[in-house]
């Protein structure tokens, strides 16, 4: 029994040739597109590099111009440095010892005397002498009506001479 394979082989060959041709063409098209994309990437790269270089140059020019103005910047830096330090030092709170001292003393009525004061940033103690209880009451009224956050009467004495000694812790 004989089998003729020649006819089939030619058909396959034709099909193969066609397939090969399509594949080849497609591959070259893909390669061409790839090269175009590659060229585009290179183009973008060149553009970006130029832009980068021009910005670097612009920055260098600005830096030079700022260096010329460095005297003003130094002065400004000095002022800012000093104000930052002063901001930490200057105590604008009403708890400052001298402010409490002035405020308490300004409340004292005639006849009252300051015998002793111990004023520190976190503690203010004052010993007041009054000739009578009326003056003492006036002092207490004035102090309680003030803006102090804490008032503590630590001691109250009536001496042999008839004067009152009141010790107050104020904050």
């Amino acid at each position, binding site marked *: 029994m004989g089998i003729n394979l020649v006819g089939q082989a030619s058909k396959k060959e034709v099909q193969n040739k066609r397939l090969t041709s399509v594949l080849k063409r*497609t591959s070259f098209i893909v390669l061409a597109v790839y090269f175009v994309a590659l060229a585009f990437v290179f183009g973008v790269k060149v553009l970006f590099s130029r*832009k980068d270089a021009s910005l*670097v140059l612009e920055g260098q020019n600005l830096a030079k111009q*700022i260096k010329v103005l460095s005297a003003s910047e130094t002065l400004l830096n000095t002022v800012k440095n*000093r104000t930052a330090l002063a901001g930490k030092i200057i105590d604008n709170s009403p708890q400052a010892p001298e402010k409490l001292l002035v405020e308490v003393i300004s409340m004292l009525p005639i006849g009252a005397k300051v015998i002793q004061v111990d004023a520190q940033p976190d503690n203010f103690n004052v010993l007041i002498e009054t000739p009578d209880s009326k003056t003492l009451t006036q002092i207490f009224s004035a102090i309680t009506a003030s803006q102090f956050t804490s008032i503590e009467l630590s001691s109250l004495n009536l001496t042999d001479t008839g004067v009152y000694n009141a010790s107050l812790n104020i904050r």
Partner: protein
Amino acid sequence: MIGQTFNQNRPLSQSLDTQGLKTKTRSFWVPLSIFFVITALSITVLGPQTQSIFDTREHIVQLQQDNRVLVDKKNKLTSIDKSLLTRQARIAVSAIPVESSGLAALATVRNKAFSSNITINQLRVSEGESSEKDAAKEVRLQFEISGSLSDLLKFIDSLSKAAPLLRIASVKMVGDGVTISTDLEMKTFWAELPVSLPPLNTPLNQVNKKDQDLLGQMNNLKAESLGFVAPASASARENPFAPY
């Protein structure tokens, strides 16, 4: 015989298969080569170039930002009133001097005490320690003073308005209601000037409202002149080093 035929045919069929495979794969050689070329180019050229583009883009964005800051800084520095800034710097340095302010503070205390009828009995000056690196350095002044209550209050009030900056640390008063003896502890401050300017691309911090207020307070502080020390009177002896 059958076995022989089988053995003879085997190499023939193998050669036919190889031939067929070659024929079949030949059509893929070109696409495969192109695929390999594209892959190789992608790895060696396209990938690094694309990465480089992204890096450059990031760099460009950063540069644009920096340049904007620099332009803003330049414009601000150009528009600054230099004479006003010089005056402000002078006021600020007068309040917090560049060198130890102990001597200037002593002069202030002495002059203020004199003008407030206060007697200074003892005076001690010591350098304080600052805990923070960038904080102002402290000089502590401790003195005993005596006078009337109103004079003492006047004295304390005048010190709070004097340059260099003086802060009261503690006040201890003991008195009979007429004359009061006071132990006063004060602090005065000094700090070296900044040695370097901030980095170029740091935005410029201008004098703001808070700084203006502080400068206003510092401007109200009055500096006292150090005065002079009277020279000692001349000795009656011609040669003070000669033996008696």
